[in-house]
């Protein structure tokens, strides 16, 4: 274009290219060896230490009562037997499917609720404080009333999960909406993103980090309340989930089974977090440049 040469000093483009190159951050992938040493070796070391101490307590006869502390190998056998009988995945699936389905419902309820509290002043004044107060109520407290309301069935489990997870999800979204920088809203308005368009294109994506944090906490709460519900509410038709397994172990005075159940509950809670929520959170933060590689 002819006007370019007449209005711009000729070297501008090349100076600009140089500046761009100088100021652009270099990025690369961390080598696997480094990831292995930094992220994988420490937790494995910790597990090995725990196992050694545990075995030491048994071998040195410091605790010499298998009904109080089973040996690691007894717990291992409990796992092995359930696996060989094909029951292990059944226990896990019963609880995980309940937990995830309940969490899905909690998302469906908590998301519009959070938006309403975040955006409508009257609703916020009315139920905002209750909603954040509910977060500090241990969701186990909902098990007795839920049993009375719904009886011993799956609805009762779902009710307990919902009451545990909905406040966290809604609160996460509310704080996400509160933290949307006003500059984004102004920029959106100058482009014509007002009303519903503004909510969809600006407010919701800007609130995503808070929302994901709320989801993560919501999952932790629903998993805990589900386990409490499964331990308290025993009924043959409900099937055996991890909570029931734990309670069955206790009534049978089978400490190996109790340990098996506790380890499974811990393992599943961590696994869901590691496989679903942590990657989701990292992706959200990294794509915005909010997560600096350490």
């Amino acid at each position, binding site marked *: *274009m002819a*006007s*370019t040469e*007449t*209005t*711009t*000093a000729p070297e*501008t*483009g090349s*100076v*600009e*290219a140089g*500046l*761009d190159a*100088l*100021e*652009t*951050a270099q*990025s690369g992938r961390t080598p696997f060896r480094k990831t292995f040493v930094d992220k994988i070796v420490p937790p494995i070391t910790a597990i090995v230490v725990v196992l050694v101490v545990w075995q030491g307590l048994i071998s040195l006869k410091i605790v010499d009562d298998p009904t109080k502390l089973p040996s690691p190998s007894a717990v291992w056998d409990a796992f092995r037997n359930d696996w060989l009988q094909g029951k292990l995945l059944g226990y896990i699936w019963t609880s995980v499917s309940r937990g995830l389905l309940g969490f899905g419902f909690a998302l469906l309820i908590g998301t519009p609720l959070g938006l309403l509290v975040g955006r409508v002043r009257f609703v916020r004044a009315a139920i905002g404080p209750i909603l954040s107060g509910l977060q500090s109520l241990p969701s186990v407290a909902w098990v007795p009333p839920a049993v009375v309301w719904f009886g011993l069935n799956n609805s009762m489990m779902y009710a307990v999960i919902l009451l545990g997870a909905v406040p966290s999800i809604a609160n996460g979204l509310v704080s996400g909406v509160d933290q949307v920088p006003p*500059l*984004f809203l*102004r*920029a959106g*308005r*100058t*482009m*014509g*993103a007002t009303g519903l*368009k503004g909510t969809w*294109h*600006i407010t919701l*994506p*800007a609130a*995503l980090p808070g929302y994901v944090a709320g989801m993560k906490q919501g999952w932790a709460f629903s998993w805990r309340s589900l386990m409490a519900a499964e331990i308290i509410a025993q009924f043959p038709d409900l099937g055996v989930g991890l909570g029931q397994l734990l309670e069955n172990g206790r009534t049978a005075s089978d400490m190996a089974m109790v340990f098996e159940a506790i380890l499974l509950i811990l393992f599943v809670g961590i696994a869901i977090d590691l496989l679903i929520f942590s990657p989701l959170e990292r992706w*959200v933060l990294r*794509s*915005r*440049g*909010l997560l600096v590689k350490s």
Partner: protein
Amino acid sequence: MATTTLTKADPSVEYAARLEHVSKSYPGPGGQQLVLDDISLDVAPGEFVTLLGASGCGKSTLLNLVAGLDRPTAGSISTDGRPALMFQEHALLPWLSAGKNIELALKLRGVPKPERRGKAEELLELVRLKGAHGKRVHELSGGMRQRVAMARALAQESSLLLMDEPFAALDAITRDVLHDELTRIWAETGLSVLFVTHNVREAVRLAQRVVLLSSRPGRVAREWEVDIPQPRRIEDAPVAELSLEITEVLRGEIRRHGQH
């Protein structure tokens, strides 16, 4: 270079923005606080005007009024369509890539989906960021971000571009380069620009007309036509000379506030 997507100023419209007796006051501790007092100003189609003033002259308030983000207390403002606005901060949305930021502006303007990608590429090429479509905002340098923000503002295809100290946070070398780019793009597109700054040299370097605002309340204190030919550089003697003259008047305006 593709500039077909950009609006040339329509010669049948006699102004890109017209402000008539605009005043703005906010409720303050001692009653109503007058921020802008009786401002009348025309920006002609294709004209580059800088608004210059010290702190407290209500420059940003004035731009918000012209952008339609706020309403004047008195007087009227008319613009030819909704103006585009660039801020001191790039205000790019960090969850979208550079190109998608531009595409969002196109989408909100009603450009159909199949055309958006191509237009975004053209606009990136216009600000010399070819190939940056997929880059994340945090991967770009400050100067590159402001150029993407400029491309996004141009995507709105308004005939008036409002700029609120857009280069104030950049280092001097980058700012010089962006001055060149803005001058080039302004000449290529025939846009009208209303550019707010407190930097006298920047005002003279860029504008055809410099409007000096007094402070508290903001009034039009004086205007200068700048007939130094482009391309100018901020170090050029005529730029420095006029800057000196304007700075003296600006200092006089500021001095008045220390006297009572």
